[in-house]
Each structure stands twice: as structure tokens, then as C-alpha cells.
């Protein structure tokens, strides 16, 4: 029998929770909950503890269970409110986080209209309707909100451009093409609280006079699309899309897997059914965008902030943050740290607080953090006291970006990291601008050569020179920022590049061509796991690894129960 104090059980069932194994937990709970309400909710942001279950008691207390296995035992623990398996939010995170935008994520059923309304949902929209459109725009300007997609353009000003236009149709686009590898803030918001994004869009449509709204969402986010579709249907049913004597049409368009479509003019082309290449600006989209109509594009997180501004007022909103960056920011923390996940922090918090206190990374083990994905740059650990705001990050050669934050540990090679990002951007370049199309390819090839141990010192100057030319010679954000990962690593980790090109060594022992693998026989228990695991037969019967055959796949290192196999400097291993 379940504990009678349980009022409702919430299971984190966003796509991250499902991937971690929430489905069997749900199945068991439905079977055994015995009349207690079981809700499938969004994400609480503690990815490292997924699958996660929250129990709300009849006293209103919240009890969390983390890493819940899909077993009878684990589920019984929850139903009995057992102390076993309970999860407490780590102190560092609880004290540093400021949850405003994501307040409802994981606390409401994403597809429930009633749930959202019961939590002040659409109050901001209703307040906006009591104001004139110009007053709403003013309120957003006063709040100091800047675009959360990466560029950081003042949102209210963008709105005022569209509001000032006279046209038979005005178009609003929500950029939900979250393409930066390592970023999942927008996915989480759309999956967990789709109505919050839509409320922000309705307010924007009212303030700017928009007649048609698109949500351009990447097709890789099926759950987000599903939840948004349900939420839009609910809006239509309750006629919230009818205001100011007109009817707003809200259309979801699925992207088709092109990173460049996150750039606004490329997105407009894609929404017109064309190849997603960027356009020359001017004319700016607010002058001539989708099919020539004035068009404004905001990102998911930006729209997600708007209801807060209208609900609590611009002044209260602007009380959080720094001089030039107001409010909170979502970050997707990933990489070499203990507690990856989605966090919401006030602007102005330092990188050290995010990475060490919230993320639980060990300061000794961290080399740098990559902000802004493939468009951003790395920031070395020495500069982690930098406050996180648009302008400070830019001055360091990184960007705020959309909020992907990847922690790079001491065991990672910065040249390889740069090569990886250029591999991404050179493949995603749409091909329109020569410098981006050919330049990123040449940069990538040069980095390939360096990581293969065939680089020369002159390559470093070449990379810097070409990088700056690509910046200047590209039309859109993709090309203008593509060299950032290389230029930033060259700036802060030049010694690693030099080690590769002068000594042909990879100090992090990551570049395969510059690394050997060796077995330390003194600890070996001769269990033969390595020999069995090796896919290429590089390990002899007397436990010697032949580096001429070895592909550096790491299988044996993982297989060895005694941890006797290590990567060593190139040339130190055995060659037969």
C-alpha cells in the first residue's frame, strides 16, 4: 500500500528523462500507485540524477527521488516515502541558482491548460491587453531584456522596429532551431512549459501588431513539437489568439537539419521553402522578411522571459542582473563535470560559481569552458572570475551564445577541441560566402594536419590570418563566428599548439597520431580481458601492445579491471 501522505507523484518525462529510463518507472508507478495521481512533467534540470521523481505530500512538502531505477524495489521506496533513494539538491546549486524562467518546468503537466492557468499562466498576457501596444513595447525596453539566442540585441528595440511598420501582414518568428551542439535550454522549456513560450509570443504579437506567427523548431525535438501543437490547439479553443480585432495564426514549421537556419535571414529563406542560405542585410527582416513582409525573430528563451516582465513589471525584472545584462540566463552545463544539467542563474554570476559550485567540477581538473558552442570561444580556468554577461564574455573572445557551456577537463586537447568545432562549422557552412565555404575547410584541414602530427609552426600564423579574414568576409553569424574556437584556443592555449607542431606531442594524450598505448605488467593479473576486447588483435599473448597495429580505440583501457593500460606519449609505446 502506498503511503497515505502522498498527494501527487511527478515523473520527469522530458526527452532527457525518458532517455535516462523514465518509461519503466512510469509504467510501474501507474500499475502500483493505486489511485494516487501520477503526472508526467518536464525537466527539473538535474540531468545527472535522471530519472527523477518528485512526490508532493498532502502537507505540500516536496520529496525528490533521483536515479530511480525501473525496478519494483525503487518504485516501492517512493510509494512508501522511504528514505532510500532520496535526492537533495546540492548545496552549491541550491544557493547559486535563481529559478525564474524555468520556475514551472517540472512542476506543471506540460500539456495541461488548467495547470498553467493555475500557476499565473496568461496573467501577463491579460495585463498586456489592458495596456496599449506601445506601452507593452516600452515595458520590454525598460526591462533591459536582450536576445537570448546569442547576439544579445535589445529585445524591446527590435519589437519597436516591427511595431512602427505599416503592412498588410506582419510576421513573428520564434527561433526554436537550437542547433548548437551541447545546448538544450530551449528544448527543455518547450517540452516542459510550452505555454510560457506561447504566452510570450502572444504578448509580442499584440505589442508589434503581428498577424502571423511561426515557430521554427528543429525536427530532432519531436516531444517539443508535440507539446507545442497541443498547447496551440488549446489557445485556439480558448480563443486567446483573438485580440485587438484580429486573429493570430500560429504555425509550427519543422526544420530539416541545417545549422545555418538558426541565422535569421537563412531561417526566413527556409520558411519560404527555399535553401536556407542567409541574405544580405540591409534590408533587415523588420523591413523586409518573410515573403517581403516586415518580420521579427526572437529566440525561445527570449519569449520565455516576456511573461515574467509583464507579470512582475519591468523594474522588478531589471533588479536582477548587471548594468548591461538583465534578468537570468539558462545554461546547459555539460562536459567534464560531476553534475551536468540545465541551470538558471542571475546574469553577473561568475563562471567559477557556475562550473565549480553548481556543476560540481573539481577546479584541479578543469582547463577551460567553451561558451556559445561552435560560434563561441573557450575561456581558460584562470579567467573564471569573469562575470557572465554579454559584454564581459565578448571581451574575452567568447560569446554568451544561446547558453551551451561545455566544461573542458585537463585531459582534453585544445587543438583537438578546435578541430572538432571546425569540423562541425565547415560541414554546416551553406556555401554562399567564399571565405566561409573555403576558408573554414582550409582551417579544418590545417587542424587535421596538426592533430595528425604533421603541422608546422607557420600553420599557426596561417590559422590566425585566415580566421580574421573569414570573420570579415562572411555575410552571416555562422561564418563571422566560425573561427572563434580556433582563435580563442590560439590565444589562450598557444603552448598546446606549439607542442603539437614543434615537438609533435599532445600533452593531453588525446590526439591518436601523437599517442601510444602501453600496458604496465607490474599490476597485470593476466585476465586476458584486453586481448579478448581488442578489435584488431594488437595485444600479444604475453601482454604487449603493438602500437603499429593498435588503433588507439581505448577498448582495452576500459576493459582492464586493474587499470594497467594507459595512453602514453607518442614513441614511448612498443612497436613490433
Amino acid at each position, binding site marked *: 500500500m502506498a503511503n497515505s501522505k502522498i498527494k501527487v507523484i511527478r515523473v520527469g518525462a522530458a526527452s532527457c528523462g525518458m532517455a535516462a529510463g523514465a518509461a519503466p518507472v512510469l509504467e510501474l508507478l501507474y500499475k502500483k500507485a493505486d489511485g494516487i495521481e501520477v503526472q508526467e512533467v518536464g525537466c527539473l534540470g538535474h540531468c545527472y540524477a535522471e530519472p527523477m521523481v518528485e512526490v508532493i505530500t498532502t502537507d505540500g512538502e516536496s520529496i525528490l527521488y533521483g536515479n530511480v531505477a525501473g525496478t519494483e524495489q525503487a518504485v516501492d521506496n517512493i510509494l512508501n516515502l522511504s528514505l532510500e533513494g532520496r535526492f537533495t539538491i546540492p548545496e552549491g546549486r541550491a544557493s547559486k541558482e535563481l529559478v525564474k524562467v524555468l520556475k514551472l518546468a517540472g512542476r506543471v503537466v506540460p500539456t495541461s491548460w488548467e495547470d498553467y492557468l493555475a500557476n499565473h499562466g496568461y496573467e501577463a498576457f491579460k495585463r498586456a491587453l489592458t495596456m496599449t501596444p506601445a506601452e507593452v513595447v516600452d515595458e520590454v525596453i525598460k526591462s533591459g531584456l536582450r536576445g537570448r539566442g546569442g547576439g544579445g540585441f535589445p529585445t524591446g528595440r527590435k519589437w519597436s522596429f516591427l511595431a512602427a511598420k505599416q503592412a498588410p501582414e506582419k510576421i513573428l518568428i520564434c527561433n526554436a532551431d537550437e542547433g548548437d*551542439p*551541447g545546448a538544450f535550454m530551449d528544448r527543455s522549456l518547450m517540452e516542459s512549459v510550452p505555454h510560457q513560450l506561447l504566452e510570450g509570443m502572444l504578448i509580442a504579437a499584440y505589442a508589434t501588431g503581428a498577424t502571423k506567427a511561426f515557430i521554427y523548431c528543429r525536427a530532432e525535438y519531436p516531444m517539443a513539437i508535440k507539446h507545442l501543437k497541443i498547447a496551440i490547439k488549446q489557445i485556439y479553443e480558448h480563443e486567446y489568439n483573438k485580440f485587438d480585432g484580429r486573429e493570430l495564426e500560429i504555425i509550427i514549421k519543422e*526544420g530539416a537539419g541545417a545549422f545555418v537556419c538558426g541565422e535569421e535571414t537563412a531561417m526566413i529563406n527556409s520558411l519560404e521553402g*527555399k535553401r536556407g542560405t542567409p541574405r544580405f542585410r540591409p534590408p533587415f527582416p523588420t523591413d523586409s522578411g518573410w515573403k517581403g513582409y516586415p518580420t521579427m525573430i526572437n529566440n525561445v528563451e527570449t519569449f520565455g522571459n516576456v511573461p515574467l516582465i509583464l507579470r512582475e513589471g519591468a523594474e522588478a525584472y531589471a533588479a536582477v542582473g548587471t548594468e548591461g545584462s538583465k534578468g537570468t540566463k539558462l545554461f546547459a552545463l555539460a562536459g567534464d563535470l560531476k553534475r551536468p544539467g540545465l541551470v538558471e542563474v542571475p546574469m553577473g554570476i561568475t563562471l567559477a560559481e557556475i562550473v565549480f559550485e553548481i556543476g560540481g567540477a573539481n577546479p584541479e581538473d578543469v582547463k577551460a569552458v567553451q561558451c556559445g558552442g561552435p560560434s563561441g570561444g573557450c575561456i581558460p580556468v584562470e579567467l573564471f572570475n569573469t562575470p557572465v554577461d554579454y559584454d564581459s564574455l565578448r571581451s574575452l573572445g567568447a560569446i554568451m551564445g544561446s547558453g551551451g557551456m561545455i566544461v573542458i577537463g585537463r585531459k582534453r586537447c585544445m587543438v583537438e577541441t578546435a578541430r572538432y568545432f571546425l569540423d562541425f562549422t565547415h560541414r554546416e557552412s551553406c556555401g554562399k560566402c567564399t571565405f566561409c565555404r573555403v576558408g573554414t575547410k582550409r582551417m579544418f584541414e590545417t587542424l587535421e594536419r596538426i592533430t595528425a602530427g604533421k603541422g608546422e609552426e607557420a600553420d599557426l600564423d596561417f590559422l590566425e590570418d585566415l580566421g580574421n579574414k573569414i570573420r570579415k568576409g562572411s555575410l552571416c553569424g555562422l561564418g563571422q563566428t566560425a573561427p572563434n574556437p580556433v582563435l580563442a584556443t590560439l590565444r589562450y592555449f598557444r603552448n598546446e599548439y606549439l607542442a603539437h607542431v614543434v615537438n609533435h606531442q599532445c600533452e593531453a594524450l588525446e590526439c591518436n597520431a601523437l599517442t601510444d598505448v602501453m600496458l604496465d605488467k607490474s599490476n597485470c593479473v593476466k585476465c586476458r580481458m584486453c586481448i579478448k576486447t581488442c*578489435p584488431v588483435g594488437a595485444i600479444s599473448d604475453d601482454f604487449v601492445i603493438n602500437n603499429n597495429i593498435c588503433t588507439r580505440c581505448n*577498448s582495452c583501457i576500459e576493459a582492464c579491471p586493474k587499470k594497467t593500460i594507459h595512453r602514453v606519449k607518442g614513441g614511448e609505446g612498443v612497436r613490433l
Partner: protein
Amino acid sequence: MGNYSYLSTIEPESSNLIKALQLVQAREGYVSDEAIVAVAEYFSLAPVEVEGVLSFYAQFKRTKPGKYEIAVCDGTACHIKGTPAVLKWVSGELGIADGETDKDGFFSLVTVACLGCCSLAPVMSINGKVYGQLDRKKVLRILKEYRNNG
């Protein structure tokens, strides 16, 4: 000739071209030459214009995928945590490279930019079901399970 009458659920307006191609792919698993001609006719475009748009977007496949499509994530977090190794294990086991389908049409293999489950890196998905925190054993076990279950 295949039957593409389902296209009529979409208005033949140029901004719907990508949507139509997505529908074709959802129905057939890929976009064949024949489908391109049918879509072009439906939208009153030249086949080359349709192919121009289609070839721009990574989502569209021009070869028939296997019954189970393995998508190995090569997002930043996964890459750092070992995508190259995951790819090697999968393609070593199945004898196919990125973008290929095996001989009996059972498995196909692609790499994708990011599945958005970075905290579970390295990650792959099979027909949309995501598997996280992969190591070699886990990958081989998963592939075996699919084989055994047919």
C-alpha cells in the same frame, strides 16, 4: 510509379515544399528520384529545384534506410565523451560506415549533430529511442538485442 496522392493534404504553395518533402520521407523512409519528380509536378517546379532544396538539408535521405536506423550523436559533449569510439564499435560490428545500410537492410548508420541529451553522453538512438552512457559492451549488447528481436 509510386502513389503520391497523400501530397494533396498539403497546399501546393512554395513555402510548403520542405513540409511536403518531410511528409514523403516520413511515409517512405527516404526521398527517391521518383518522389522528387512527383513533388516537383505537384508544386509546379522543376525537379532540379526540388533537388536543390532537398540536398541543402541534412535531414533528407536519398538512400533507403535499414529497418533500424542507428543515429550516433556527435554533439560536443558526446564527441568529448567518445563518439569516434562509439562509431568504430558500431561500424566494426555491422560492417557499414556512416550513411550506409547493411546488406539485409536491417541496420543503417548515421551520425547526427546533437540529440539534445548531452548529460547522458555518449549517446545514440535507434529508431528514435535514445541510449545513453554508452560503452563498448553496452553498444554490442544493444545491437544484439535488436538482432535477436528481429
